């Protein structure tokens, strides 16, 4: 942080030239059931197909073999999942950013085995490869992304110019961070996360030249989103969004599977038998799909033990199946109503309703949407591909080589962001459906005499009590001098960047004591974890990774040293003799290790320089603040914005140095 601050206020002059974009940027729809990759070719977004099978769709299913092999896609789903249910992870998206206590990880009817959670471990882990490995949802997702990345590299010929990955609009900050981490882990430069309904509207709107206000109803395998967008003159402005990040076709399957098991006189949790659970869920999915066109279909299920297999059949009519899933579908109604209300619209004012997601193929869902909006939804759209196509368009725009420089997406924060205050009550700083990027600053005070610290607890959600919201992060601001209650003034600033990710900083006004974090929820990965996983991964030879880490640390060392030199030259009057000798010693050390090959040593030396220059940086920052940067609330927000942005600059720039993203480039750990 202090070196960042140094850099932040160093005079312009040493411009950091970004490396030229190396290749085409891609858009990825990382779906619960299926994933796709698309790119803009000859001005049009197209989905890229597997060279062998010719399929655009990659089933989001990952199998971990006992011999260390990883199989992703149709083979994992169709051949391996029934044999090895424990070792085959489907619908991993529903576990992203979720903890062991979440509903998803505690279902009774489940084919998975979870690794025992250590006390306080916030991350779910699947026990796979016959129990030999424990993998996180981030790692599983990265396997899917690696396959898509390899496909894109093959189809587009060589290195990629970055990727836009889509997420459900209703994903919270933890789920977004987890998705970004999965991209990093797959060696992708993640240019942006964009919301799935927004991506769909972008592809649809550009393709059809549509203008007006549209609703996007996106019911996928695992998540439900509804967004209201205004399309005008190439600007796609999201007015409101709503949804449920644990509602989708999988829940239909589960409802049908419960019914099948009951009909066969079996316990509806399959008695803890993973194979039976997998078969019941697969049979449910098959019969649901058959009933999209047929009025009546048979679900076949192999039951019994290995010794005496027995095939049972249950016949379902479409009406029976619809009655089973209706209660699940009904849960879509409230988010739709709320989104319309937040947009200040009646359904009749819409120009159209766009359907996205495989589950919207069901006649029942189409009737339901028709009833909800009072109109038949638009049908001239491929609900499977449209999200990936929109992501490709946005990737093309961000990579700067697009022709569509008239197009702009304006998206929103899906859930309110706030802080815990006295009594477990949430104080909202950023209300839901605020257009991003956005910021807010609020002042809090102490409630006890001689209180010397603040515990900050960042939460996300609409409820008034902290216990009912999602906890995103906790951090402390300490070292506040003892004062009577109510005297200390804590100014907290939230910044939501263009990715929808939250950054928080806090400052105690009477002392100028500051702290800041990018909200890195416990569900995300630390830089060290990403580094370790990269080292472990099969796709990267160890030497490659080390070489990349080394290059990046050298670039970082160079940058930090020159920022420090510039700052010292700029304000020598703020340097004490002690500062000078400490900084000189740290710089000498850095120069020495920089020519070596140990990236860890370089990083340690950077950290030492960071510590040595801390006081000096603090004085420079204070002076800069005193000399006019301090204004009203917004000015403060902007000062924080600058800090955050300078970190982001660093991230993006560093990822240009290689094709991976081994760590975020923050110098302060």
């Amino acid at each position: 942080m202090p070196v960042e601050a140094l850099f932040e206020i160093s005079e312009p002059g040493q411009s950091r030239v970004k490396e030229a974009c190396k290749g085409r940027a891609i858009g990825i729809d990382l779906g619960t059931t299926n994933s796709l990759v698309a790119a803009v070719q000859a001005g049009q977004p197209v989905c890229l197909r597997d060279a062998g099978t010719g399929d655009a769709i990659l089933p989001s299913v990952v199998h971990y073999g006992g011999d260390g092999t990883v199989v992703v896609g149709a083979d994992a789903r169709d051949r391996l999942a029934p044999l090895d249910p424990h070792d085959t992870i489907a619908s991993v998206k529903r576990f992203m950013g979720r903890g062991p206590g979440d509903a998803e990880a505690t279902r009774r009817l489940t084919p998975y085995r979870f690794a025992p959670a250590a006390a306080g471990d916030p991350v779910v882990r699947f026990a796979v490869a016959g129990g030999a490995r424990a993998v996180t949802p981030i790692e599983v997702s990265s396997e899917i992304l690696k396959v898509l990345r390899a496909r894109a590299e093959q189809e587009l010929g060589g290195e990629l110019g970055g990727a836009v990955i889509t997420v459900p609009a209703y994903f919270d900050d933890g789920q977004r961070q987890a998705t970004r981490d999965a991209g990093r882990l797959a060696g992708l430069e993640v240019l942006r996360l964009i919301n799935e309904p927004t991506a769909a509207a972008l592809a649809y709107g550009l393709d059809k030249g549509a203008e007006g206000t549209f609703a996007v109803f996106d019911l996928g395998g695992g998540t439900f989103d509804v967004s209201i967008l205004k399309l005008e003159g190439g600007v796609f402005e999201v007015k409101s969004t709503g949804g449920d990040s644990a509602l989708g076709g999988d829940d239909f399957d589960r409802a049908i599977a419960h019914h099948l098991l009951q009909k066969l006189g079996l316990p509806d949790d399959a008695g803890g038998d993973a194979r039976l659970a997998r078969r019941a869920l697969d049979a449910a999915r098959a019969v649901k799909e058959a009933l999209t066109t047929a009025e009546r279909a048979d679900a076949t299920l192999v039951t019994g033990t290995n010794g005496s297999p027995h095939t049972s059949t249950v016949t379902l009519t479409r009406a029976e199946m619809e009655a089973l899933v209706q209660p699940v579908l009904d849960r879509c109604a409230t988010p739709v109503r709320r989104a319309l209300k937040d947009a200040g619209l009646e359904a009749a004012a819409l120009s159209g309703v766009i359907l996205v997601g495989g589950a919207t193929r069901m006649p029942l869902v189409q009737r339901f949407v028709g009833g909800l909006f009072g109109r038949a939804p638009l049908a001239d759209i491929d609900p499977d591909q449209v999200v990936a196509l929109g992501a490709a368009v946005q990737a093309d725009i961000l990579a700067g080589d697009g022709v569509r420089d008239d197009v702009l997406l304006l998206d929103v924060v899906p859930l309110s962001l706030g802080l815990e205050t006295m009594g477990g009550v949430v104080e909202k700083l950023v209300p839901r459906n605020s257009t991003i990027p956005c910021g807010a600053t609020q002042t809090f005070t102490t409630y006890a005499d001689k209180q010397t610290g603040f515990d900050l607890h960042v939460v996300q959600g609409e409820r008034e009590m902290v216990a009912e919201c999602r906890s995103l992060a906790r951090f402390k601001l300490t070292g506040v001098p003892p004062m009577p209650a109510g005297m200390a003034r804590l100014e907290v600033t939230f910044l939501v960047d263009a990715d929808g990710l939250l950054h928080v900083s806090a400052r105690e006004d009477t002392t100028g004591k500051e702290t800041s974090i990018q909200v890195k929820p416990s569900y995300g990965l630390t830089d060290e974890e990403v580094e370790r996983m990269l080292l472990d991964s099969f796709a990267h030879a160890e030497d490659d990774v080390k070489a990349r880490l080394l290059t990046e640390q050298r670039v970082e060392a160079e940058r930090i040293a020159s920022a420090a030199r510039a700052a010292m030259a700029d304000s020598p009057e703020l340097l004490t003799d002690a500062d000078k000798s400490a900084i000189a010693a740290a710089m000498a050390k850095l120069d020495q290790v920089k020519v070596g090959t140990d990236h860890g040593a370089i990083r340690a030396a950077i950290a030492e320089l960071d510590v040595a220059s801390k006081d000096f940086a603090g004085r420079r920052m204070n002076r800069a603040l005193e000399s006019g940067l301090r204004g009203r609330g917004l000015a403060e927000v902007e000062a924080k914005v600058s800090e955050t942005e300078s970190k982001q600059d660093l991230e993006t720039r560093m990822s240009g140095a290689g094709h991976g993203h081994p760590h975020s480039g923050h110098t302060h750990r």
Partner: protein
Amino acid sequence: MICWSCERATSAGGECAACGAIQPPDAKADYFAVFGVARRYDVDFADLEARYREQSRKLHPDRFAKADPRARRASLQRSVQLNEAWRTLKDPFKRAEYLLSLSGVTLAKEVPPALLMETLELREELAEARAAGDDGRVQTMARAMRTRVEAAMQAVASGLVSGDLPRVAGELIALRYYRRFMDEVALHDDTVAEAAPPSAEMRGP
């Protein structure tokens, strides 16, 4: 200030006249100035919205994804300011509050006791109706409250035009309470709708 790009004199909140580079926001500019419109309550909404789109197109970080870091920083800051300005000015209630604060009038922390008593009673009555599941009574109360909100907004609008700021301040305080009441009505509507899913009607007999 000095342009970060060409190092010639320029001003915040726009583009450098000499080299065209985006500049950081002018922290002293009010939200009306951000849009380049006159500081008044009765704004032309369609015009304001068109300006918002136009400015967004120019300032959004997507436009600067591969630009110099200082341009990207300026773009992020300008976009944050623009979005905050838009959020404030597009809502008549927030716009009125903001205009009042620009005139140096801050809403009093102390609420007139009569208003407090009345709204407390209304909230209690609403809570009773909700507890009794009496949707009809809730809707009747909501209609009455909507009429009051409209009247208060009318008074705010004319007060801002005539310059009767104490009156505006009084109405805005009352409106805060009215809005909280309407929030609870919205909560009630959600609960009622959830209890009776739309499919119940759709499926028919």
